[in-house]
């Protein structure tokens, strides 16, 4: 099957994307996030922050079915594919919205690869509005499942996973565990006996993160035991593409906001955007974003229509997105001058989300190393 020239992005995706855009802009996620942060500003003095989660907004989103858009019809999902999921996540990124929507969509692409009644059961819980996350990193950030150390024996897990995203917003965690060198995927209820959670204190204010320790925890098996963590390998292009879409959205906000500032901030009797030292880097940010956005839609359409080409397309997308994240955050803050460096400005919130996303699942250098092997 060939990838359609227009990425199979049509009226349907366009309507969905504008609906998400309107929704996010109506609830103004950052103003409610800010009130939850009061008193926690100073990392030397502040309390450990709780992951901010607008339950009402989540209930409204799930009533519209956005969390289930990529799940199979069998489970009650909309079966819409990665291009549609990317359109939604781009707007979540544009709003820097604290929400488990991203990890839940990622989980749905993992669940799709598990081919079991138990995985369909978890999918149905998502359809019913439950947020689900996933993870299997070691404390060094390694994604190699053969060294990650969660062991399964007769349905009971031992070990730990780290850097799990939006953990505090979710009820269940998907993870792989090994048994005699082979890997299967499991679901664990995060409040089950033997589970303990360490909440990380992180730079990004719009996400939460943590580690989960398992001491003889009951888990439900979701996939067969397979070599090479195949479930993850098959879903991985989708996961990389979704994070890249979030970056494309956040970076576009950074561009638009910095352009507006450059039009209104007067120095030397002119709006600073008159000066080429400001104008040209903003053009370069736009060029970065557009390249990333094109690669993101290409990767999504390739995943949906030509699975064998999905990995290189996704590696390119995340390599590009990671650079766009770094560059747009850097120029956005710098060109705002002093105000961009303050807590008061939303620029800092986006900056932190962007650099967090830059490193999620590997940065540009990481993905280029893997891509090079395919050239």
């Amino acid at each position, binding site marked *: 099957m060939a990838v359609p*020239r*227009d*990425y199979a*992005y*049509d*009226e349907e*995706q*366009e309507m969905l994307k504008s609906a998400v855009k309107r929704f996010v802009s109506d609830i103004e996620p950052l103003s409610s996030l800010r009130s939850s942060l009061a008193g926690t500003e100073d990392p030397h003095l502040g309390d450990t922050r709780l992951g901010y989660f607008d339950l009402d907004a989540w209930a409204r989103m799930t009533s519209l079915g956005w969390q289930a858009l990529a799940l199979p019809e069998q489970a009650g999902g909309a079966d819409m594919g990665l291009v549609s999921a990317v359109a939604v996540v781009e707007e979540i990124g544009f709003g820097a919205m604290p929400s488990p929507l991203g990890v839940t969509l990622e989980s749905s692409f993992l669940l799709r690869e598990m081919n079991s009644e138990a995985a369909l059961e978890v999918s149905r819980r998502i359809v019913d509005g439950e947020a689900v996350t996933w993870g299997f990193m070691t404390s060094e950030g390694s994604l190699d499942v053969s060294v990650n150390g969660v062991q399964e024996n007769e349905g009971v897990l031992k070990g730990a996973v780290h850097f799990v995203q939006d953990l505090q917003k979710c009820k269940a965690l998907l993870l792989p565990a090994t048994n005699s060198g082979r890997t299967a995927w499991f679901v664990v209820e995060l409040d089950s006996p033997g589970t303990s959670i360490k909440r990380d204190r992180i730079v990004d204010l719009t996400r939460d993160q943590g580690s989960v320790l398992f001491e003889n925890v009951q888990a439900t098996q979701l996939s067969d035991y397979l070599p090479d963590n195949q479930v993850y390998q098959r879903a991985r292009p989708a996961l990389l593409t979704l994070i890249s879409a979030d970056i494309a959205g956040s970076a576009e906000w950074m*561009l638009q906001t910095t*352009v507006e500032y*450059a*039009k209104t901030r007067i120095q030397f009797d*002119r*709006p600073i*955007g*008159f000066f*080429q030292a*400001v*104008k*040209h880097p*903003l*053009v*370069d940010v*736009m*060029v970065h974003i*557009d*390249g*990333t*956005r*094109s*690669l993101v*839609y*290409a990767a999504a359409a390739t995943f949906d229509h030509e699975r064998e080409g999905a990995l290189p397309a996704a590696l*390119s997308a995340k*390599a*590009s997105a990671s650079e766009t994240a770094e560059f747009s955050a850097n120029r956005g803050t710098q060109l705002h001058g002093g105000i961009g460096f303050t807590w008061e400005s939303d620029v800092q919130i986006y900056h932190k989300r962007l650099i967090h996303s830059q490193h999620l699942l590997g940065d*540009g*250098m990481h993905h*280029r*190393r893997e*891509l*090079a092997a395919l*050239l």
Partner: protein
Amino acid sequence: MALDRSFKDQVEFAAYCREWLAKNRPEPTRIPLPQAAYEVTLPEHREYLEDWQNKCYKAGLIATDLPVEYGGHGFEGFQQVATSEVQKANVPYFINWIGLGMAAPTLLTHGTESQKRNFLPTIFSAKDIWCQGFSEPGAGSDLASLQAKAERKGDSWIVNGSKVWNSLGALASWMLLLVRTDRNDKYGGLTYFVCAMDSPGVSVKPIHKMTGESGFNEVHLEDVVIPDDQRVDEVGAGWKVAMSTLTSERGAATGVGAVASSDSPMSHVERLVDLAKSTTRNGLSSWDDPAVRDRITRLYVRVSALVENGKRAQSKHLSGSAMRLPLQFKLVHSEILQEIHQVALSILGPSSSLYVGDADAVEEGKWALGYMNTYTNTISGGSSEIQRNILGERVLGLPKTK
């Protein structure tokens, strides 16, 4: 000149193009062709390339989607297919790239009915080569400050002045010409003409570039008579027409002219990968050096993005504001191409010093030559700095620099 075949769809047409290109690929020339059509000067190259372009035109690969009355083939949605097959086929470039890429789109938009009927068919067939007379010694990035002037005399205009950086001037029959018709109005005082190069008073003097090649020229115009029916659009509309020419030059990567650029940016990256894999130093291949590999892979990702930008620009919903993607093409393409050559010189190391004509030069010295020629792309047709002004002002809405 309708092609005597009907095609069911793009897939069938693509197969036809591939087959035709494979069957009709010309034998190489005795003296190798220069790297780009800019630098063609030898009569035997000219003849060879005119013949090649004319064959491709007759086969339907040029002017594929244009109306039959203007010399087109009357298809719909097939030009893109032909363009991409030509780029993949690794065949000689089209010599009349200014005619295809700039004159044709400008005349299609701004020309009179008879200008279109007269000029377009011989542009496509390469019977008439075109060149461009915009820049002057005193008017480069600030193009509208140009001083060559045209004065009305009855049904004609008398033109005096100098044009510079004129590619293909020595071979051309026609020139796109931008001149001043009103001294008191910088932008509104410009008018656009097409000028026959064999008119009395036109003289062409070659300029040697830093590469040593003489691709472009200085053109002097002394009391040159241009009939009023060779004026394009209204008197005083020259700036608008010139901007439309330059927008075509900067490439949108689509339309009638795109077919003129014979190799795709991705083919340069592929050649760079090959170069790294075949170069060894201290017993290691350059490709095994992670620093080199990372730089090349980064270029690969940027070129992939450029290619996808071209596709996204065609998507109804994802293209963004109208000119946002098309206006980026020239800037991004030219800077990537330059960096590709910089990386190639790094890989070559000391061998990068060997130039065209040295028996030991890798690939006949094409990387060093190509490196220097990339400045043609980053400087001509509006330098990268001007491109950033245009993008910042027209797309992002930032205050104008001028």
